[in-house]
């Protein structure tokens, strides 16, 4: 059996027909199976944590070990798994409501900790499983049942937020472009440290206004320059209806110390080898 088939479960998929989450699931499967095919990784090397929301149903459709967490807590739980077993690579799947509202207190610290894990944000700019309220990344004027007068605030720019917090890997993808997303995810997983992947996604039921941005998107060459990264981050402010949206690895810093390098115990607790082979400097 192919690895990709092993990654599937028999659960009935309950996303709306045509939801871009199907494509994100496909890209995740593609990334993991390709990394496993290339060698060096096996299915047991991956753990996922998921938040609460539409995106989180990934938990039921991916045959990986994992924790289906409480709302907003997928990130700190993932960090706990990283500490508990640094040999495993943790993929934390979160939504924009989960990570930019309920769980944002954990986010800047995760950037600073720089643990070896990947945070995947399914950003459709609305709370969808709770029937269409506005999230911190929703555009100004988004009319909801709570705010019939329209969302009064300007959206948060997560890429800028990540840059300001000292993130070491920042990427943006388009959910509909499976090959590109899988490609970026592989780079994110291979990155030594905390990788932050923001996937721009449509919601077919709520917040239709922000859908179909594909024509404005373009792919950038992998960028390692911080100044360029700030420029790229400012190109799309999650609010405007015009202007270009850069995709790809917007910033990567390969020289930052990872959490395990800063904490010698973590290598010792787990024993040598695995992803941390040669990376952890022991005391003495």
């Amino acid at each position, binding site marked *: 059996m192919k690895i990709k088939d092993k990654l599937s479960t028999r659960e009935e998929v309950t996303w709306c027909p045509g939801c871009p989450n199907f494509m994100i699931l496909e890209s995740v499967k593609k990334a993991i199976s390709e990394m496993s095919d290339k060698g060096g990784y096996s299915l047991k090397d991956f753990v996922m*944590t998921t938040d609460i929301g539409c995106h989180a149903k990934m*938990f039921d459709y991916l045959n990986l*070990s*994992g924790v289906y967490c409480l709302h907003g807590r997928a990130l*700190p*739980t993932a960090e706990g*798994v990283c*500490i508990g077993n640094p040999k495993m690579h943790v993929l934390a799947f979160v939504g924009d409501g989960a990570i930019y509202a309920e769980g944002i*207190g954990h986010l800047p*610290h995760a950037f600073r900790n720089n643990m070896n894990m990947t945070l995947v944000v399914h950003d459709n700019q609305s709370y969808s499983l709770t029937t269409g309220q506005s999230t911190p990344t929703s555009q100004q004027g988004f009319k909801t049942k709570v705010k019939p007068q329209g969302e009064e605030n300007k959206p948060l720019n997560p890429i800028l937020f990540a840059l300001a917090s000292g993130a070491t890997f920042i990427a943006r993808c388009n959910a509909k472009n499976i090959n590109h997303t899988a490609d970026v995810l592989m780079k994110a997983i291979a990155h030594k440290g905390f990788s932050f992947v923001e996937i721009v996604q449509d919601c077919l039921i709520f917040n239709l206004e922000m859908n179909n941005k594909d024509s404005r998107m373009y792919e950038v060459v992998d960028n390692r320059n911080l100044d360029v990264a700030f420029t790229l981050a400012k190109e799309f402010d999650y609010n405007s209806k015009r202007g270009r949206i850069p995709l790809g690895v917007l910033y990567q810093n390969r020289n930052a110390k990872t959490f395990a390098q800063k904490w010698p115990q973590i290598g010792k607790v787990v024993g040598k080898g695995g992803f941390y082979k040669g990376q952890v400097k022991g005391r003495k």
Partner: protein
Amino acid sequence: MEQNILIGGAAGQGINKASSIITDLFTEYGYYAFNYRDYQSLIRGGHNFNVISISDKPVNSSQKKYDFILALDKRTEKLHKGRLKKHGQIISFEKFKDERRNLNLFIAVEYLAKIGFPRKRVEKKLAKEFGEKIIVPVEGLYNKYHRKKELKSGGSKRKLLTGSKAIAIGAKMSGLQFYAGYPMTPSTGVLHELGGMQDDNLMVVQGESEIGCVSNVLGASFAGKISMTGTSGGGFDLMSESLSMQGQSGIPLCVYLASRPGPATGVPTYTAQADLDIALRAGHGEFPRFVVAPGDAQEAVKLANEALYLTYKHNTLGIILGDKHLAESGFSFNPEKIKFLKAKQNRDLPDKKIVKASSYEQNKFGNTTESARVVKKNFDARMKKYKILKKDIEKNFEGVKFYGRKESNNLVIGWGSTKGAIIDGMNGLDAKFMQVVYVKPLSRKIRKEMEKAKRIILIENNQTGQLGRLLREATGISIKDKNRILKYDGRPFCCDEVRGELKKGGVGEFTERMKRKGVKKVKRRSRR
């Protein structure tokens, strides 16, 4: 010898250092010592004091009145003078007015010289603490009292521990590998102690919030590490959602809850036993848990060990419930060898096979289900888990402990840090003390004892008698209002306070006549 001394001054004057030198010296010299810390929520200035009780017999509480007052400032003298015993003395800062930085040590040594504590030991201790450079002229201070008879040794060396250190030791010896905490008095003690104990097998992380910490611990525990977190009431409230997550996911979780007076920030550096209710019930939904409440440091070592062991054995929620009085007071005892239980993972780990833990109800593959049949099945499984846990505790661990006169009809009930004051306070009285060690699940012995007793007295450091309420729920026996001794001013009980209240409540001295006649024949007017 029995002495109760107070050392007071402004924060920053080194009151803790002085009292630790005195208590260390006495416990090394074979005496028992108990150190109570009373301090305000500030770093410099204000008024702080420690009360040290020294005795050649076990002592685990302080008294209301003092034999000595060691005053490092005017305020101490003024505030506490009224509580001096008849022949009590004040050692005042005025005598050492020129000594600014080492005033605390000068006063401590003056006290030791006054009571005739062996000089050599004092010199040795100071040299050990501060190096060879002489900062206090011990000989000079001692010369004034050279005719004084030297104090005799109290026996073999005793061990002195704070509750925080005891819990840290208990956890470390159980095989703790990961601890995450966010600073909050009085739980910070354990965070500090474990931080200092870090080695290749233990990692201690200061998280971004209590929610972050408890989530970290759930993650690490899921990945296979023996993990624990600790906090105080407010932080525990934040953690509540994750306690519930534990109940659903079955990832073992051990939480140390050090309570202090609420509501809200309350009086943050003082003590209360007001968080029993949240320890028992925090978290939405119905799921198993157990709660242990150590009463002193020696017990805290043992119970922290049992809590971690049981948490991982039964994949459940374990709560170690303490308070500021337990966490920060110094307790002395005879060191004994403890056989530590090793906490071991008792579940499949994700590096061996696919393991799914979830906040949703799960089907047999670990995926989300909404099926009525499966939901009920899962609920039943959780209840069954609790029954097994309860049986294990009833059979293998001490749920309640008894002190005092076993045959007495007067039953005193308490839990946690009031233990010391109760035992010391009812010394010589016709009373039996039942300490509830496992607050959940409750021991079966409790009902029998309560039914047998003619008078039941409840002692708690809270306003509403939370244990009393729990016991009424469990046994149907309610404790009369007049028999509930409750204190809720942020201060712990003193032993003489407990004694006075017990006597007022009708508990008499244990006399020779009673010994001859047997207690059963002595008539008691009221039931309970």
